[in-house]
């Protein structure tokens, strides 16, 4: 049992030789992935990075603050189209377009957060679900914005006029995802994160203790939507084109399943869920007809056997070894 004597020791994220070697091994693996893995897998790896960003953001809202969102594809769509329009119409370079996507989505997150102040449970579910459907329908029918059937084509990612290759995009996206995960990890350890968790556990008790519900609930929606928007902008650049069919109710459910299967209210859980639910469908692509069946059965099985998700199971395994032989 290690004893922490100073506040700084409690703040450190990585502890001990084991922690540092695990982190270094992970970084080395991520850095060497383009050499080790076949070329087509790099696209999947970049997609994993996109989904990690979206899932971490969604978990901040659902897992930490306890506010259901079944319309997250709507925020992703807002981010993607904002970035797309900034890049094609106004010729903003990609860092600006991505940031713009994130900010636009955060604004919509703030707007959805306002009715969410009064709604809970099924009522909040239908409100967010309605938002997702509304965004999808507006994009489908507002052709000047979305480019209609032909879709919206984005310029290729480039730094100083040099076009990025697949492995460059992978490094860029992995770096972005890592930075955003790091920010989220620190956010949930700060007073903001504690306020989120307090609202999840009991909003009335949190209010009594001096947590401003209006501020923190809308903040949770805005931050979560910001992550979704950045993820959407990354997705837009990764695919190179956008169409409204990329952001349907099914995608909202897909993102939602990631965090529940990975583990609600945990950052590592969101990452694990995003990895699993991105790679699994790609590997099962040969069984396309059976995909929904396998996918649904997996979700039901995980939920029936381990409600805390994959990360919850990992924590239990760790606990078992720690307390062994008892």
């Amino acid at each position, binding site marked *: 049992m290690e004893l922490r004597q100073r506040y700084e020791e409690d703040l450190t994220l990585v502890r001990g030789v084991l922690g540092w070697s695990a982190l270094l091994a992970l970084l080395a693996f991520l850095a060497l992935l383009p050499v080790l893995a076949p070329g087509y897998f790099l696209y999947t790896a970049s997609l994993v990075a996109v989904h990690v960003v979206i899932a971490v953001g969604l978990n901040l809202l659902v897992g930490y603050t306890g506010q259901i969102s079944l319309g997250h594809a709507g925020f992703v769509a807002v981010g993607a189209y904002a970035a797309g329009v900034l890049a094609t119409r106004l010729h903003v370079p990609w860092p600006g377009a991505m940031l713009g996507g994130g900010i636009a989505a955060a604004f919509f997150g703030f707007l959805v957060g306002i009715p969410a102040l009064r709604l809970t449970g*099924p009522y909040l579910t239908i409100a967010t679900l309605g938002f997702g459907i*509304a965004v999808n329908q507006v994009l489908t029918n507002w052709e000047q914005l979305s480019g209609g059937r032909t879709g919206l084509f984005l310029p290729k990612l480039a730094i100083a006029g040099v076009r990025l290759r697949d492995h460059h995009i992978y490094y860029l996206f992995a770096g972005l995802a890592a930075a955003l995960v790091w920010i989220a990890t620190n956010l949930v350890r700060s007073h903001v994160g504690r306020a989120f968790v307090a609202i999840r556990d009991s909003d009335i008790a949190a209010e009594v203790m001096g947590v401003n519900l209006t501020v923190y609930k809308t903040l949770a929606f805005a931050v979560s939507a910001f992550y979704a928007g950045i993820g959407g902008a990354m997705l837009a650049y990764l695919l190179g084109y956008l169409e409204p069919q990329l952001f349907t109710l099914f995608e909202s459910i897909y993102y939602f399943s990631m965090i529940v299967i990975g583990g609600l209210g945990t950052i590592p859980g969101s990452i694990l869920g995003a990895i699993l639910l991105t790679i699994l469908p790609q590997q099962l692509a040969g069984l396309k*007809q059976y995909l*929904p069946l396998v996918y649904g*059965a997996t*979700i039901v099985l995980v939920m029936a056997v381990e*409600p805390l998700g994959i990360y919850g199971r990992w924590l239990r395994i760790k606990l078992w070894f720690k307390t062994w032989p008892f």
Partner: protein
Amino acid sequence: MVQDMALLVQYVVVGLAVGSLYALVALGIVLLYRTSRILNFAHGDLATFGTFIAFALLTAWRWPFAAASLGSLLTTAVVGAAFFFLVIRPAKESTLLGKIVITLGLALVLQGATVILWGTGTKILPFPLSDIKVYRLGQVVVSQISVGSFAVGLALMGALYVLVQHTRVGLAMRAVSQDTVAAQVLGIPVKQIFALTWGLASALGAAAGILLAPATLLDPYMMLDPFLKGFAAAVLGGIDSMPGAAVGGLLLGVLEALFGGYVSVKFKTTLAFLIIIAVLVVRPEGLLGREYKRRV
């Protein structure tokens, strides 16, 4: 002026016919939510599955329509009850979120099964009523199928009302929905009541699916939109109120028809959800729902 009135009445009539089906879907969702506090996202896919069963009985087995419908309702009820016994009861998960995800998983499983068994192509359900034959009342035109589905919808709602309010089983269902533990202590077979509720709710969904089939054609995703509308209607009326579900469904149908007729068909669904969000901001418990109180 007279023409304007006739047009208005026409839209309202069309809206009521569609709304009665939304109300049926909503009733299934509310029935289950009241009893077991589960938002069943598989409701639409259970309904689709039931409709395909009816299709198979009608075409491959050549059953008469009434028998095929009955067979479909029973099969769907059994599937719903089986899902309760096999998954919901043994599952350790108890939060609202977790249960939503379980039913989402079931939705995918059922959708996958439907695709594998019947393919993704659209099919036509042989329906005894026609939508070409119409009745005229002055300038208002009503198709035979609208009249039929409205009548069946109302009849099913009435039957459900009688079942829940005036029978012993209904009393047990209401008791379970108010306090599960107290009901169990008083000797009500809670497990069976839950299974019965799952079965009833699923059968209601299948009935809505069969009535909708002539309008939407048959494909594995046919119930997605009606399910979302039904869900919205249930929330609009108040998710724990059965009269609320009926009122919410009819209201949503009429509003949609009016907006589609006078303003824009494209943004019909968007409007429906915006209205619901607006209503919920003013009345967070829905139109007829009871105010949500809890102990701190």
